[in-house]
């Protein structure tokens, strides 16, 4: 099952903030920031349980994160990944010559990735080190 024509937003959540102060390399950070929040109705279309891994793809990359239903909805057609290493695999690095990358509003698609591994922060960044 997949969803196309979504818009990806990223940003701070309080759980992500607590997790990064508690240890950026911990499982708490994975639980707080390696997640993709869906609008309730969009999530029904995925036909899966909360927590099922999903692969989020944009023109700039892809990342596997856990799925969840947004508490800050309804926002049909919009998905949200908390700021952090997972979100930054798929954001638009283009700053339009102002210095600040476009962290919000990318076109995205989501596919179910049942059984896929969601990497922790160090595993994810290690891939960039070894690239």
């Amino acid at each position, binding site marked *: 099952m997949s969803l196309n024509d979504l818009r990806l937003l990223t940003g701070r959540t*309080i759980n992500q903030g607590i997790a990064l102060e508690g240890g950026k*390399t911990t499982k708490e950070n994975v639980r707080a920031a390696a997640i993709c929040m869906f609008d309730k109705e969009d999530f029904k279309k995925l036909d899966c349980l909360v927590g099922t891994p999903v692969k989020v793809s944009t023109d700039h990359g892809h990342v596997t994160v856990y799925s969840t239903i947004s*508490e800050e909805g309804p926002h049909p057609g919009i998905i949200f990944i908390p700021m952090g290493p997972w979100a930054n695999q798929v954001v638009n690095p283009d700053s339009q010559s102002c*210095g600040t*990358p476009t962290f919000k509003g990318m076109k995205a698609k989501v596919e179910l990735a049942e059984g896929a591994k969601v990497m922790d922060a160090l595993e994810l960044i*290690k891939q960039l080190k070894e690239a």
Partner: protein
Amino acid sequence: MVERKIKTVYDVVCPFCGTLCDDLEVDVNIGDQEVIEVRNACQIGTAKFYSSNPSEHRYTKPLIRKDGKLEEVSWDEAIEKTAEILVNSTRPLLYGFASTECDAQGKGVELAEILGGVLDNTASVCHGPTLLAEQDVGVPSSTLGEYKNRADLVIFWGSNPVHAHPRHLGRYSEFVRGYFKKDGRNDRVVVVVDPRNTHTAQIADLYIQVNPNEDYELMNAMRALLRGVEINEKEISGVPIEGIKKLVEIVKGCNYGVIFFGMGLTQSLAHHRNIDTAICLTRELNDHTKFLITPMRGHYNISGANTVFTWNTGYGYSIDFSRGYPRYNPGEYSSVDLLMRDEIDASFIVASDPASNFPADSVKNMFKHPLIAIEPHETPTSAFADVVLPPAIAGIECEGTAYRMDHVPLRLRKVKDAPKECLTDAEIIERIIEKAKELKGE
């Protein structure tokens, strides 16, 4: 049972977000210098104080990567290695500085000038567009105390303080009782403009759901309506025209309004043009009533980093010293753009975690070259660094000055001692400066 002697430090300033709450009380066990309780802080601020306690994630000794592994070394060896890397590089990037105090930021400017490097702070990836817009069109702004005492209309545009600045609403903008707003929340109208029905929106009086990346159009529609122009569209940016007219009537009808804006404007398409327009809208609203605007700054001392860099170089961020004098050009000398073009041949990171917070392709290029991190905890940046220098955490283990989001400077307190061998950020950079001068024969 071991007897614990506890000291309580009052009026502590929280070194997490730009709200810089200054009413914290922190209990510290005097014997082992551990934080045992934090009162008045939000959940994130509390976590930051606890993070200073000993843990497997805390660095207590300088480390250098040898044969692929980080190994403990002496401060002299770590400083010498750092200075060698920086002096031998042709285009070093000095980045971070938002989560440390002003003295360390000033030392960072000095080091960048000596090295002829590029100096940048985290505004580069958050409120840099705000600085650009303020340089373009100025900014009608005020201190947070004024808003608390006077504002009867508060607009949060593209910001979600319930999550990002948890005590802002209680201290300055929504629930707090002000001198002229004695009934707190009941004396204020709160409006939220955001693509998501955020937790901040859920407790607002009016929520405007705007399409992602279309704030610019919505603000210009408001400006047109303010001037009496009829708009022949049913909706703008996903907002029905009637909703925009209602919002315009609300903003015209208030006595004292304020727009707090966040990453929703700076990190979406149009970037600084969004802020230009938001500031112009605010300015034009002053034809009808009193209106002001303030950015919701993230890191606790990012306003300080912009201020310190400006008083030293004339510019707030994205500063290139390669010609021996400071030049400023975001987009060219900004960290992510430099890294995307693979121009940097060494990175010196102070109190920041670009490996987590920069887009993936720029991180790949950063890792190609030597990386030095002044960082108290293990992060995706420090874990892959070549040199790790462990500092005392500013605002918890050493004093200093920090600037609140409204540019009010506050003195940070020391509540406990740092682990034995940790130096302050300023001391570390000072030692690197001395060594770099020595190596350069100055």
